[in-house]
């Protein structure tokens, strides 16, 4: 599935109509108006290729996997395991066994916190940044409270970039066992320099985990080029279904750490006295997995690859530049997060108008944005705000939709101020 690029960077604008036609929901009306969906960073919409793959599975080729000795089960197992190969290629993994299916990024990070975390000793440190989603903070707090490891927070700069000098200092005592940092902030849109972070972590003797929930939607991930140790993504932001996420980790780490959940499928032998574990990846996949959702994820990755990251990247870069320009012209609007390397996630405030009021009034005009703390309360405190509104873009977003957003924001401001 690698690089089936059909659109050059300049072509996506021309194929936008075709891409939008693949997403049935985009033709829906909301409050009698055309839906302007600008909340893809929370969860992306699904193309018919994904919807059809899941429905076809249930209609024509469904059974439990890995255990049935009959035709239908074997075919479903093949379809499920083929997605593991797809994901391995999508992330640049060295081996298919390094791909663990989870429920979402949150569960993937919890798996690492539980299994890798169980090998950590008091005095060792897990290092996160100030701009983490709760998913990459709370599991480490729980690990700290369970085991006595230290949880250390490395700061961001005022423009919302990771403070690399501070990171260096925070690594300097040699006690950091794991650096767990976002690859792209869900609030600020900041894209972190993952390779540089990995190099610094490794030089200090630490492993490194990247939360790629946002980034993997917008740019090609190559876990080996990044020299990562753990990488997590979630299917529902990748135009796939909910209930399916991925943990990638180096094979030698996965072999060394204990299982996460116990149950069927993850064992080698079981007696009342003791059990032994299956080899990776199955050691980490207890119970019947999300079979249909996994197949849906496969269809989503094939869809993304059919457009290609060159085209996706160019489209979103142009959209983001356009959005920063037109939103910058809205009176009283302040963009939160101005890091030099950023993606199509834009948080903002507008004078004293509360983000929830902004979101409700945008909704009345068919425009869907997120408002609130975006599951990043400590970051909100760092930024000195209680909440922001956030517009985020996907492969189906058009410049015209951003113009509608900006014009409606200007009207909302006039309503309040």
């Amino acid at each position, binding site marked *: 599935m690698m690089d089936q690029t059909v659109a050059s960077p300049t072509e996506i604008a021309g194929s936008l109509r075709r891409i939008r036609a693949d997403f049935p929901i985009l033709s829906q009306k909301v409050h009698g108006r055309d839906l302007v969906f600008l909340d893809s960073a929370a969860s992306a919409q699904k193309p018919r290729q994904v919807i059809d793959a899941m429905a076809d599975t249930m209609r024509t080729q469904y059974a439990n996997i890995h255990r049935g000795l009959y035709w239908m089960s074997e075919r479903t197992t093949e379809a499920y395991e083929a997605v593991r190969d797809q994901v391995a290629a999508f992330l640049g993994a060295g081996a298919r066994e390094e791909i663990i299916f989870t429920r979402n990024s949150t569960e993937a990070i919890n798996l690492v916190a539980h299994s890798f975390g169980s090998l950590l000793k008091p005095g060792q440190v897990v290092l996160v940044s100030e701009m983490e989603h709760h998913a990459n903070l709370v599991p480490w707090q729980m690990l700290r409270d369970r085991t006595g490891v230290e949880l250390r927070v490395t700061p961001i700069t005022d423009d919302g970039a990771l403070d690399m000098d501070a990171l260096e200092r925070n690594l300097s005592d040699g006690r950091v066992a794991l650096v767990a940092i976002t690859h792209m902030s869900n609030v600020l849109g900041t894209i972190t320099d993952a390779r540089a972070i990995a190099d610094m972590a490794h030089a200090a003797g630490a492993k490194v985990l990247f939360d790629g929930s946002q980034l993997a939607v917008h740019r090609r991930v190559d876990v080996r080029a990044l020299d990562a140790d753990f990488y997590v993504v979630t299917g529902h932001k990748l135009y796939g279904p909910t209930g399916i996420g991925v943990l990638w980790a180096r094979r030698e780490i996965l072999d060394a750490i204990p299982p996460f959940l116990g149950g069927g499928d993850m064992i080698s032998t079981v007696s009342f006295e003791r059990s032994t574990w299956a080899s990776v990846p199955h050691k980490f996949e207890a119970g019947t997995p999300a079979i249909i959702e996994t197949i849906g994820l496969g269809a989503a990755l094939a869809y993304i690859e059919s457009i290609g990251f060159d085209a996706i990247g160019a489209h979103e870069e142009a959209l983001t530049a356009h959005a920063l320009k037109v939103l910058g012209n809205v009176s009283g609007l302040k963009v939160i997060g101005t890091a030099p390397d950023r993606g199509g996630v834009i948080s903002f405030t507008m004078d004293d108008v509360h983000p*929830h009021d902004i979101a*409700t009034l945008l*909704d009345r005009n068919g425009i869907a944005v997120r408002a609130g703390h975006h599951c990043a309360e400590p970051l909100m405190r760092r930024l000195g705000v*209680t*909440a922001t509104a956030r517009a985020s873009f996907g492969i189906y977003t058009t410049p015209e939709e951003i113009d509608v957003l900006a014009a409606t924001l200007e009207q909302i401001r006039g309503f309040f101020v």
Partner: protein
Amino acid sequence: MAQDDLYRTVVLERARTPRYAGPLTDADRHGEGSNPLCGDRVKLQASVDAQGRLAAVRHETRGCAICAASADLMAERVTGQKPAHVSQLHAELVTTVETGIAPEGLGDLSVFAPLHRHRSRIRCAMLPWSALIEMLNDDKDR
């Protein structure tokens, strides 16, 4: 721009220029409510007279227009009322935002009826009321 009947003039006015905001110098009751989902926070101060009626109520609200207007309209409406009547008003408002139909006599509080179509915003209007009910219940426990 399509507006919403939720954001009526009274809501915008009370959010912008509250009449019952600020601390109360002779307060003998203090309450507070916050919504961890959005960071909205309401602080209440009240004084109670010899007959057990709320003699004065003031709020300090950090939140959206719906929350701020609700706090101000609440302070106005419950002034001079006994806790039993406050509970009744609270119950009527809950029914109103759930059904979209305001009972006779709810007055300005009926501006929140359209919230039944914005279920995610109901908690914004109810936050000051939850804080008030909790404050009065604490009072009972003394």
